[in-house]
């Protein structure tokens, strides 16, 4: 029963997985572009961001089509409305990865970046994005909640990076501009963590019907 509807929901899952994977690619390429000073990877992050924008409009179209045609109720309605909210956060994640890639061009020396916890922030946020999309597709409430918990670690890493940047300026005042760029990069990673948390909160709503007030 409702075979066709179930097939379309499955397609929605596949498209969200694809969009999540693109976000992971974008963050990972942006982080490597920064840490390894690789301009080709910065381009890759920007390309991924454009692809994410296209994926957002594909998923949005599919969700609107499902709302129009299938008149979903109960868990189906929560799932589709959650997907519509989630893709806005994933799209923002793509933007921020592209912003990091952009800044990677201004950070002339990767060694200063390597001495901070920015690499750890990148790894932590990639895992959050992966887990948030996985938790939706697998309908895994515990995994969704673990993403919200992981955000505390990203926030703590952001505080570490801030201290490291202050130390950088205090030891070499000529690195003021670099310090500001790195602070922006760290802030973008911190925001990516927030968006992944939003995704996980929508997963929680989809599964339980209860949504936390956005952080």
């Amino acid at each position, binding site marked *: *029963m409702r*075979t*066709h509807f179930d097939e379309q929901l499955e397609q929605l899952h596949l498209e969200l997985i694809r969009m999540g994977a693109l976000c992971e690619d974008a963050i990972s390429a942006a982080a490597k572009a920064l840490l390894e000073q690789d301009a080709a990877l910065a381009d890759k992050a920007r390309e991924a961001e454009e692809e994410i924008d296209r994926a957002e409009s594909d998923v949005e179209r599919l969700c*609107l089509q499902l709302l*129009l*045609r*299938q*008149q979903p109720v109960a868990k189906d309605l929560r799932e589709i409305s959650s997907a519509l909210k989630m893709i806005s956060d994933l799209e923002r994640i793509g933007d921020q990865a592209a912003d990091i890639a952009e800044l990677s061009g201004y950070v002339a020396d990767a060694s200063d970046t390597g001495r901070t916890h920015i690499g750890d922030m990148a790894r932590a946020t990639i895992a959050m994005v992966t887990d948030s999309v996985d938790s939706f597709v697998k309908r895994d409430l515990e995994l969704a909640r673990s993403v919200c918990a992981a955000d505390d670690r990203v926030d703590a890493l952001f505080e570490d990076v801030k201290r490291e940047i202050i130390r950088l300026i205090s030891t070499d005042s000529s690195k003021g501009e670099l310090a500001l760029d790195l602070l922006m990069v760290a802030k973008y990673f911190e925001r990516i963590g927030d968006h992944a948390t939003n995704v996980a909160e929508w997963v929680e709503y989809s599964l339980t019907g209860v949504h936390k007030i956005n952080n």
Partner: protein
Amino acid sequence: MDSILSVKDLNLWYGDHQALRSINVEIPANEITALIGPSGCGKSTFLKTLNRMNDLVPGVRITGEVNFQKRNIYDPAVDVTGLRRRIGMVFQKANPFPMSIYDNVAYGPRTYGVRSRAKLDEIVEKSLQAAAIWEEVKDRLKASALGLSGGQQQRLCIARALAVEPEVLLMDESTSALDPISTSKIEDLAVELKSKYTVVMVTHNMQQAARVSDKTAFFLLGEMVEFGGTEQMFSAPTDKRTEDYITGRFG
């Protein structure tokens, strides 16, 4: 778009009352076309013109053309029985014949001269499978069709219609007497059938039209106000009367 039915300037009167007004439409092959509109708007009358079921109504007068695969079905030379074999119909209320499940499905092919038992067995199984009811009845084919549930009876009627290998299936509110589960089964079935058949369905249930159809036609007072892609029709109809009707603001 390949149209299987091409309707040109079709008018229909019941005595002095004009029930259809200058209908022009191309119904695409291998798609589901839904006909919607308030009671008395002409949608069922229109459906019945597509296989000349209105011929049976006294005092009916029809002008214009309904071309089925480029031939006007109102041409006096057309064999109406043969036409109804190619354009089958399923009604609002399931109407199985008071005979066995097997005989219900075999009735049409027998009428058309199939005598071989093996051939009939094959047609019965194939038709019941296509109507998604085979698994439920395969062990009691000799039992009376009247013992089936309403939803099963309706799927049996679809199997009976498919047994004569039609090209078009007309469904006149075929799920309106069924519970949501049986309705859902028939909706899934209609979507599956469209790879082989063209389906034209009248429905009072706009959500059903949105769920299953590719094209939707909105009728009002005997006029086809709007015809187009279902998503277009339900997201941005071009006529205000369509908008008022589908949003429940009619009248």
